[in-house]
Every structure is written in C-alpha cells, then in structure tokens.
C-alpha cells in the first residue's frame, strides 16, 4: 500500500516533468523544416568543381599533420536529420537539431583515411559550407563546435534567422557523414593509419584514430537503427528523456570521456532489442532497469553487441580485440565500430558509481528520490572533496609530438595527470577524475589547435576517508626490493626517505609533516609536489581549492581549534573536582559539557587566559591580554532528594544556593577562584571560565514522561531547555567523532551565518543540525570529506531545501522508526495548518526534527520566521553560486573568497557601526565595516571605561585585583542589543554575535492599532535613531539611515 502511493506521487511528478521538458514537435517541425530547407538551398547553390585547398584553414590542416588535402568541391550526396530530433526525444533546454550532410565520394581519394587527410578534408568541406551559409540572409550566425570534444572533428552550429520564442537558442548542427567512403578493412582496429605513431620505429595500431573515421562512416546507418527502435514506443522515448535529464545534471558523467545523449540512446536501444525491457514497462521502470543494467550488469565485461542486420557475426577474435583495446565496448550493428571508443575506464567507473547511487536513492529516499535524481545539480564543486585547476595555457611541452596522433594530445595529458595523481595519492583518494573541457566557445578552425589549451584542466578528487587523507607518513616498498624502491625514489625524488619503522621494517617512505590543525592541507602538499616534479608546472599554474576559506577561522596564523585538547583536559580535572566536593547537602552526581567549544564546533574556542587560573604565573602576564573571557556552560546534576520546593522560582533560587555553596567549597577547599551573580556562578580553572548550571531531575523525569504521553503538567522551561541542550551536546559530540570534517564545516557555516548578520535568526544549534543533516543523509552524493565541499553543501541545503513543504529530519543516531517519522510528519502538518489561509501564518518556518525534539520546539519555533528564512535562502544561494564559480573558473584571488563572508550593508534600513576598539574580542572581527551612503544620523565618541585588553597598569596590580578586572562573558554588543529589543520595538536588529562591528536595522511592520500608539516615534525616525545612539553611548561610532520607515 505504502509503496503504491510513493510510486503514484512519483509518477505524477515524472509525468509533469516530462511535460515540461518535452518539445512541442508540431511547431518545432515547421521551424526545423523551414530552416533545413533554407540550409539545403544554400548548400545546393554552391558552385561545383572549384578547387578547395588548405588555404581555408591552414593552421588546422597543419596542426593535425595532414598533407595532400586539395580536392574539387562537389555537392553533398544528400541530407538527413538524425539524433534526438529524429526520434522525438529532445529534452529542454537543449534545442539543437542534428543534420547529417553526406559528403560525396568524389571529393576523396581511396587512401585518404591515412594521416588525418580525411579529417582535414572534412574540415575544409565544412569551411566551404560555412562561407556560403554566412552569405545567406536566412542564417543569423554560424559557429564552430566539435563532435564530443574531439577537436579534429569540428561541426557547424547554424543559428537560423527565423526564430520562435518557444524555442530559445534553437540551432542546427551540421555533421558531415562519410558513408562508404573508404574500405572498412583498411580501418580495422589493428592497423596503423597514422605513420608518425610508432614505438621504436615500429608502427603501432591506431584504434582511436580508426574509430574516429569509422564513426563518421556509419553515422547514417546507426541513426536509422535508432529511429527504427524508438518509433512507436512512447515509453522508451520518455525513459530516454529521463535518462538525459539525470545525466545532464551530473557534470562528472556527461562529458566527452563518458556519457552523451547518443550513447544513452544506444544503450537503451540495446536493452530494447535484447528484450531486457518490454513494452509493458513504464518510463520510470525503464529508467530504473537501465540504471541497474549500467551499474551491475556483467555484460559490460564481455562488451555489448547491437543486433546486426545481415548475417555477419562478430568473431571471437574481433571481440577479444575490442576488449583489449577499449575499456568499454558497444559494437554497432555494422560490427566495425566501437561506439564507446572515447569512454575511459575512469569515466565508466564513475558512471557505474553514479548509477548505483541513484538506485540507492530510489530505494531509500522520500518520493523515490525524485528531487535528488532529476532536480539536483551535481556539478564538480559539490561532487568532489578536493578540486584542482591546472592552467596549462602555452605549456609547449604538451604539443611536442603533435596535437593529434592516435589520440588527441589533451586526452593523453588527461591520462598522464590521472596516473600521476593515482600513484601519488594512493589510497587517500577514492576516485580521481581528470577532465579537460578544452573546447573554447568562440573557437574557429582557422585558429588551429594550439589555442585549445586556454580553459583550465579540472581535477576532482573524492577522498576515501579523512583518516587516510590526514596520514602523515606513506610507507613505500621495502629497501630490499631494489626495483620497486628505485621506482619509488624516482617518482618521489628528494621527498623519499629510507626509514626504519617501529615494527623493525626498513622501507622507503614519504613524510608530510604538518601541524595538527593543518592536516587537511597534506593532500594539497602532495599534489603540488607531484605535479611540480613531473609536469614542470609552477605554483601559479596549480590552483587547489582547499584552504581558501580558512582565513575566517584563524587567529593570526593559527587555528584556535588546536587548543581544544587542552580544554578537554581541564574539563576532566574540573569535573573530578566537582564530584569530589563533600561539604554540600547533595553531592554532584554528573557533570556534562554544554558549550559548543567542548564538541569542537565553536568558531572560536576560547584560549586559556593566564589570569583565569588557580595561581597566576606572573611571567605569563607579559603580552597583550584580553580583558574579557567567554564563559562555557557546564551542566551538573545533583543526587536525588525529596526536599526540593515546588514552584519554579523557588527551585531556581535553590539551585543558585547550591551553586553558591559549590563555589564556596571550591574556593575554600581547592583554592579555585569563582565569581557569581544572582543567576550565574563562574569558575576559573586552568585558564578557562566555566559557568555552572543545575539540571533538576524532577523536571527531567517530567520531560521524559511528556515524550510518551500528552503533557499533564507544565515542565519548568529552564530544566526542559537544559535537558534538550545536554542531549544535543552529547549527540553532536558523538557525530563530530564519527565525521572528522563535521566540526570544521560547522564552524564555517556558523561563521557565514554570523558574518551576514543572521545571528538573531538562526541558533548555533540549528546550524549544527543542518550540517549534521549533510553528513547523515548525503544522498545523492557521498559523505563530504573536505570543508569547502561541506560548506558548499550547507549553503545549497539552506538555499534549495523546500522548507515550506518538508520537515528536515536529522536522524543522528539512526534510530527513527516508522512511528517516529509519522509523529514528526504530524507535528509538521500542524505547524503548517495556517498555511492555507495565510502564507505567513506558520510556525517553525524551518522545521528541524531531531531525536530529542520531534516537534521542532528547541531551536527554530519562532526564528527564523518566514521572511527571515527567505532572506537566509537568498543569501545562501548567492554565496553558493559565488563559491561554485570560484571553484570552477575564477582566478584564485583572496579578495573574491572574502566576498563570501562580506555582507553588503546597504540591504538594511539603517546601520549602526560600533567602535572597533571596544569590541570584547577584536581579533574575531572579519572585516572592518564602513558605510558611505545613506544619511549620517549620529556620530559617537568611544568610551574610555572599557578596553578589550588589560592595560599595563592593571598587570602590575595584585593578583586578586587582576582577577576582578577580568570580565566574564561581558559583551557590550549583547547589552546594546538587549536594550534595543526592550526599548525599540519598531526596530529589528540584524547582528553578528561572533564579533562584528556593524548592526543592521530594519523597520518592523506594524498593524494599524499599534501604529497610533507609536505615532510619535515613527513620525521622526531620525529622533528614534538618535535615541538608539544615546542608549549605546561609548560603543556606537556612527549611525546611518538608508531608508526611512515604510508606512503601510
């Protein structure tokens, strides 16, 4: 039953998707017919028998190394439409139609298959056509492209002058075909047809070159075969479109060395003609069967053979030969061509991986993974953990032996880079993909092939596991194994080192020494070393996307996370102290950390402060010391007792009394200094300040009961919140241990949210859950293993998730059952109840369900609200776009990376700038804010009372006084914000709680009743802003007004 509805809703969506992606062939065919006939007209009008020489494209002919290319022009033997248009399976937005132009035999000599002569003539033939097309008024423009990125086989893309708005970018690709131009036997796979391809003077076979010509010879025949298979089979065509959508969304498989639309069609045709799919299947089923076939079939090892028309059989020897020469074989119906001759084994591996991932999605995900399969773009940046761009422009070493031999030089280079990295990285990498899309968009064949190295070569690496990637020593072959050891030394050069290991082994090895916090850079160092050594590239040519975002997490030149270990040790000592306290009525039974610094997800975990210690070491008081110290919350539980008071206030007071007793005892017995307010007790130990909280177990038991049944009694909110926070802390801590990349990604995410002044909208815990979701449910991708990759996925999640219609379920310990999911869904539906009447009327605009909180009550009930969530999404989208672009194409300039964290201040109605030297932690400030627009309303002087650093005078005082000077958790920004919220309800602040120097303000909307009351304030926004400035005296530097309030 359940499965039925899933497929139902999926089928509904699929049919809708198809409707949107399919073309309307009635109107399209009119356009195509008109365009084709005008092209035909032009080509037929070309005068015959004039001499075509290499003058038309001398560099091209020269670069592919052809000679004797002159011929006299003859009209083509005919035209035929082929490709996806002919089988009515085009998928939007690609609106190009393939037109085959059959080149006449008279233009070629019998031996033109030799030495690229065919390719040169083919190109010159197109040059002639282009020249005449350009002179026609029915054609707007003609540009060059290539067949599957093969530069020696250019094609023409014609944009007709006649256009329909329905089909934007409509074009016709003119592809020359060479039906029966040459003797097929001469092009058999074992023959050498390019004389310069030799090994030690002996000619080597040129299978790729031969296939390249054979492909053209059988273009027509193959397209006829496909037409026949696809005619009268609607579902098969639909499946083809679905497969195309799926493949096009994945840039790692829809490239020249893997899949293309034609090959998908061929695979489907193979399945259809071999009865692997029957006519009863629906499109989606065919889709699944095809992917299953791609992912798991054993037939790939043998090779696929399309049915032959005549009685020719492919002999065993021929099959063997195909298998030996090509990693993947799909032999066409003529039995001569391997249609997948461009596919590499890496590409095919990638294809199989992607296909099996999709099968997993279909099985596991909501709606059969519809969103993930068809709607999610999986480009290189989001797919690979470690991305590298190589700028190879003008690297002459590349073309030493000519551009085109059996394979083209770019493909050879791709292979070379791949094998180098494979050897260098070893098991650190799960997969390495090297892709060089070297086709320029405005390439002209006249320019030759030497300009085709402008685009950077792209390398994507999936890391196998973080532990492996972070390994500092690679052990190579034993010293006794002379040959291997020599090879190893040759590969690594001076980096290789003969070492004796603990187990007594003496072996060659490489050591990548680095600091603990910088271990994510090890792979970078390795890659750079290898590429420099073997490809003689300079550092500027190698752009690796690894550490570009680290600037936002680093103090000076060091990541403060490196002190986390120390913090945990101090915490251990502290909790032991607490448990040992004897002179309080109830003993401490458990101590649990709450602050994010304990789980490594704090953007800036506190550094030990020499004053916050039991004994102050005067020698350490020399340098510049901060005058503020953040307090980290620690939750304790006491032994059970029946003597607790009943009402909330009294409970809280009793808790305070206990805490004071604990503080007293710590101070008197252990000599650990403490400071206290009415609500908080802070303990200084080991350089840190811990803030104690007591969880009252009666409240806890009530919470527990509440989960089971309906709440009978209102649980004290403090206890409930404490309980939730402790649950959250321990779960995230566990997660952080499971995924080493989780913590840095979370820190980046938190930094981003704060940098764009969203601190008031999204709680830190909510961010932790969002990032957790990326790691726990990574489909349709793998688990992210690098911070940039994880961060990009976080941004995309924030931008693309359909928060209105779906709850985000974060199943941290994988313990949600069916009932839990139902419960969550019910909760979600009730939060969306008001949606029908009023779109604004929903609670939890971002519904986050976690194991401890199935109703999304903990973090996102009120904030972000709908408009805040939309704003967050918009910021995330633009940041994600910038980030993807930086990874793929931009030059590596740190300013552009900073843009990701630099928020535009003119998006607010008013802006308060703070005195930077009055921020408690000035080092946390990312960028100093300035504003040069709007109305300058007020300007304030800095207070002399507060200084973020201890003054030299203070340091000379007694230790007792010094301790009093150290301010725990004192944040003037926070004071200002709470004042704003209390007194200025008409203003909504946007701020950065980590340490920004700007606060954005927007005017709140009002309902008419309230307006009358606030009339005075509203009528003069300037006065209001001045009052704000007065309230923040000593802290506020400038106030600007950009937009006056809007009156409804």
């Amino acid at each position, binding site marked *: 039953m359940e499965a039925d509805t899933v497929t139902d809703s999926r089928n509904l969506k699929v049919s809708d998707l198809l409707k949107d992606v399919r073309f309307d062939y009635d109107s399209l065919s009119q356009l195509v017919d008109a365009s084709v006939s005008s092209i035909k007209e032009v080509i037929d009008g070309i005068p015959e028998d004039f001499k075509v020489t290499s003058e038309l494209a001398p560099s091209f002919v020269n670069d592919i190394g052809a000679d004797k290319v002159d011929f006299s022009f003859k009209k083509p033997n005919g035209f035929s439409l082929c490709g996806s248009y002919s089988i009515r399976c085009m998928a939007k937005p690609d609106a190009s139609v393939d037109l085959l132009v059959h080149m006449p035999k008279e233009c070629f000599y019998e031996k033109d298959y030799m030495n690229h002569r065919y390719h040169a003539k083919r190109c010159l033939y197109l040059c002639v056509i282009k020249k005449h097309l350009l002179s026609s008024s029915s054609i707007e423009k003609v540009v060059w492209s290539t067949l599957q990125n093969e530069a020696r086989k250019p094609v023409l893309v014609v944009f007709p002058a006649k256009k329909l708005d329905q089909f934007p970018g409509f074009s016709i690709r003119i592809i020359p075909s060479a039906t029966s131009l040459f003797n097929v036997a001469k092009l058999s796979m074992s023959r050498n047809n390019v004389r310069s391809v030799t090994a030690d003077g002996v000619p080597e076979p040129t299978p790729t070159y031969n296939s390249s010509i054979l492909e053209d010879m059988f273009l027509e025949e193959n397209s006829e075969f496909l037409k026949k298979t696809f005619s009268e089979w609607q579902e098969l065509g639909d499946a083809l479109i679905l497969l195309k959508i799926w493949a096009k*969304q994945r840039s790692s498989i829809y490239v020249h060395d893997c899949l293309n639309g034609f090959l998908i069609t061929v695979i489907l045709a193979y399945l259809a003609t071999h009865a692997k799919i029957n006519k009863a299947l629906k499109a989606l089923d065919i889709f699944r069967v095809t992917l299953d076939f791609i992912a798991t079939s054993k037939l790939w090892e043998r090779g696929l053979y399309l049915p032959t028309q005549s009685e020719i059989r492919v002999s065993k020897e021929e099959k063997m030969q195909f298998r030996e020469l090509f990693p993947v074989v799909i032999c066409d119906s003529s039995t001569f061509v391997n249609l997948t001759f461009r596919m590499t084994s890496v590409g095919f591996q990638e294809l199989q991986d992607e296909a099996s991932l999709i099968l997993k999605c279909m099985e596991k995900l909501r709606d059969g993974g519809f969103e993930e399969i068809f709607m999610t773009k999986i480009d290189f940046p989001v797919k690979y953990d470690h991305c590298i761009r190589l700028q190879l422009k003008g690297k002459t070493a590349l073309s030493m032996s000519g551009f085109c031999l059996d394979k083209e030089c770019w493909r050879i280079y791709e292979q070379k880079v791949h094998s180098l990295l494979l050897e260098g990285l070893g098991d650190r990498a799960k997969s390495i993909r090297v892709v060089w899309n070297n086709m320029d968009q405005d390439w002209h064949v006249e320019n030759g092939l030497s300009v085709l190295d402008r685009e950077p070569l792209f390398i994507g690496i999936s890391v196998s596991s973080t532990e492996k990637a972070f390994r500092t020593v690679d052990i190579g072959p034993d010293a006794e194994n002379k040959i291997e050891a020599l090879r190893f030394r040759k590969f690594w050069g001076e980096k290789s080192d003969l070492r004796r290991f603990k187990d007594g082994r003496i072996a060659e090895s490489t050591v990548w020494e680095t600091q603990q916090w910088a271990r994510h850079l090890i792979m970078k160092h390795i890659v750079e070393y290898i590429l420099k050594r073997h490809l003689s590239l300079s550092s500027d040519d190698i752009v690796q996307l690894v550490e570009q975002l680290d600037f936002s997490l680093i103090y000076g030149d060091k990541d403060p996370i490196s002190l986390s270990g120390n913090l945990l040790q101090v915490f251990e000592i502290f909790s032991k102290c607490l448990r040992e306290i004897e002179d309080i009525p109830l003993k401490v039974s458990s101590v649990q950390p709450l602050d994010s610094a304990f789980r490594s997800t704090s953007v800036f975990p506190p550094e030990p402060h020499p004053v916050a210690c039991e004994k102050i070491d005067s020698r350490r008081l020399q340098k510049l010391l901060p005058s503020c110290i953040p307090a980290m919350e620690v939750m304790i539980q006491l032994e059970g007792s029946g003597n607790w008071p009943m009402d909330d206030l009294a409970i809280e007071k009793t808790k305070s009394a206990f805490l004071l007793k604990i503080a007293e005892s710590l101070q008197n017995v252990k000599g650990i200094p403490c400071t206290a307010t009415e609500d908080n007790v802070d303990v200084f130990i080991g350089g840190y300040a811990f803030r104690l909280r007591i969880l009252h177990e009666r409240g806890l038991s009530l919470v527990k009961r509440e989960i089971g049944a309906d709440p009978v009694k209102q649980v004290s909110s403090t206890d409930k919140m404490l309980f939730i926070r402790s649950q959250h802390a321990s779960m995230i801590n566990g997660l952080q241990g499971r995924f080493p990349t989780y913590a840095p990604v979370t820190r980046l995410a938190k930094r981003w949210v704060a940098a764009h002044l969203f601190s008031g909208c999204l709680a830190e815990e909510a961010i932790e859950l969002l990032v957790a979701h990326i790691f726990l449910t990574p489909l349709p991708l793998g688990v992210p293993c690098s911070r940039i990759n994880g961060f990009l996925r976080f941004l995309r999640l924030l931008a693309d998730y359909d928060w209105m219609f779906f709850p985000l379920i974060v199943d941290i310990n994988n313990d949600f059952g069916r009932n839990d999911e139902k419960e969550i869904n019910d909760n979600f539906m009730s939060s969306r109840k008001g949606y029908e009447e009023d779109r604004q009327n929903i609670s939890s605009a971002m519904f986050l369900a976690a194991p401890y909180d199935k109703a999304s009550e903990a973090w996102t009930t009120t904030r972000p609200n709908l408009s805040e969530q*939309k704003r967050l999404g918009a910021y995330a989208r633009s940041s994600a776009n910038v980030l993807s672009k930086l990874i793929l194409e931009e030059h590596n300039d740190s300013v552009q990376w900073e843009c990701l964290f630099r928020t535009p201040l003119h998006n607010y109605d008013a802006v308060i700038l703070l005195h930077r030297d009055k921020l408690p932690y000035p080092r946390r400030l990312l960028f100093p804010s300035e504003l*040069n*627009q709007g109305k300058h309303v*007020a300007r304030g002087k800095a*207070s002399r009372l*507060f200084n973020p650093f201890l003054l030299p005078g203070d340091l000379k005082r007694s230790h007792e006084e010094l301790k009093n000077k150290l301010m725990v958790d004192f944040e003037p920004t926070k004071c200002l914000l709470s004042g704003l919220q209390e007194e200025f309800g008409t203003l909504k602040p946007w701020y950065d709680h980590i340490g920004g120097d700007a606060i954005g303000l927007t005017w709140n909307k009002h309902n008419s009743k309230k307006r009358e009351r606030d009339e005075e304030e509203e009528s003069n926004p300037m006065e209001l802003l001045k009052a704000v400035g007065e309230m923040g005296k000593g802290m506020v530097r400038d106030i600007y007004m950009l937009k006056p309030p809007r009156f409804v």
Partner: protein
Amino acid sequence: MKETRKLQKRNLNGVRGETKVEVTDVKRVGKKIQRKKKEKVSNVDLSEQPQASQLQAISSEKPKTKKKKIQKSKEINSSPADGKLSGKMKKRKEKGGDVDTITEPNLEAISTEKVEEKKSKMNKTKKKRKAKEITRASVEDDNQKREGKSKKSNKKKKMDMTSMKENQIEEEEDVYEISSGDEDCTKGMKKWVTDYYESRPGIDELQKRIDDFMTAHDERLEKEKQEKEAKAAEGGWTVVVHHKGRKKSTEAESGTAVGSFSQASLEDKIAKKKQSEPVAHGFYRFQRREAQRNEILALQSKFEQDKKRIQQLRAARRFKPF
C-alpha cells in the same frame, strides 16, 4: 578585475533581488509610486552624466572632518583587502556606461531621494535642483572611497564651490554628536560596566540575598496556608491535616513494603500490557477493518497532499531541472 566586478555584482544583485521581494510584500500600495520614482531617477542619472563627472571632481574637496574620520578608521584597522576592494569598486563605478552599473547606484539614489524629499517638503525647491542633489549624493559616496585621489579639473572645482559649501554645512549640522557617556551611568557603556560589577557583589552577599528570599518565600507560603485554613475553619469545617512528606512505605523494623508498589513494577506492568496488545490486534474483524480504514484514510490524505504540492510546484515552475 573584470571578473571581480562581475562577481560582486552578482553577489549583490542576488541579495538585492531578494530584498526587493520583501519590499513588494510590505508595500503594495507604494509600489507604483516607487517605480515611477525609480524611472525618474534613472532618467536623471543618464542625462546628467557629464555633470556628474564634474561633481565628482568637485566633491573631492570633501568636508575635512569626514576625511579625518576615514583616515582614523584606516589607522585603526587598515586591512589591505578592504583597500583593494574599494579600489575595485571605484573602477567599476568609473565605467558608467554599463547598464548594470547604472541600475546599482540608482537604488542608492532612491534612498537618498527619500530623505531629500522630506526636506523638500519644508522648503520647496525646484525639481531640477533636487535631481542634481541626488546625483551628487551618489557621487559623493564614490568619492569617499576615492579619498581625494583625483586632483583633476581644478577649474570646474571653483565653479560650484559655493553650492558645495552650503551642502557641507548642512551635513555638519545634521550629524548628531553622541558623547562618550563616561560620566553618565544611566546609559551606554558606563551603565553596562557598572551593571557588570554591581551584579557581582561577592558570594556571601548573594548567599544572604537567597537566604532572605527563601525565608520570605517560606513565610509567604506559611501565611497563605494559615489563611486558607482559617477560612476553612470559619465555615465550620474541620481541617484534615495532610501529612507532609512521603507515605511510610516500609516498616521500620522488618523493612517490608506496606501498601505500595514500586515504580519499576508499575512500569513493568504497563510494558507487559503493551506487549500483549499486538497479539490481540487484528484478532477481531472490526479491528482489522478499522486498521484498514485508517490506513486507507492516511494514504488518501497523503495522496491529496502530494497532489497539492505538485500544483504548488507547478505554479512555482520547480519542474525545470535546468
């Protein structure tokens, strides 16, 4: 450089696009008017291009106080990145011919226009003058970044000198000065610092406060109780005294339980009861029928939801994968 420009534009535009949406939400009425204004402003911007360049040169003679402030802030935190960026922005704005670059300052101009508009209500100046001001406002912004670098066209500088001066004074008067507040402890930094220290009077003092609270609290409770009892007694009722604390559950000597059962055993019972339920579940026909009906209802509602969602998606055109 060009790429940076593009990128920034993209970044900003994306974000700005969103805020626009918000704006439309809020003021549907004002929308029309605003659009009109926008057009007007953009016209002005285009037509006054040459004049704008004049003004740029002039306003490089900035009010000196402003300049100083900028320098000061630079001293405090002279990040090289910031300088670079502003340099880039400068370049972008110089290329005024670009369509995109025109639209961007426009938005800025609108905000200034509104301010100006208010002023103009008081002293109705001519429209043309207003337009000039707008361009100047946006141009001025440019020049703060320029930091007086451009020392071209000295002649033109003098021409509009007078009007500039007027403007300067206006600016000066408008900016409200906030004192550092170091002597006033009702507001600002001084208050926060004092509050901080006052909230930490020492452990003994705090202990005393809590003790006071607790005694007061107990007294209040006691008093309430007594009042209640007194009231009840007045009505002629006898008060049945409730024994405080837990019921005696174990005999002092033997240690055996008296008339009570433990939490654990109760939970056990409940668990057992729950366990036995699935056996009974679906035993009777009505149970099975009910279960089936419920399931069908749930499925139906889910199906309805899905359909609704698809309609919404269709409206939002989410089915375009590319």
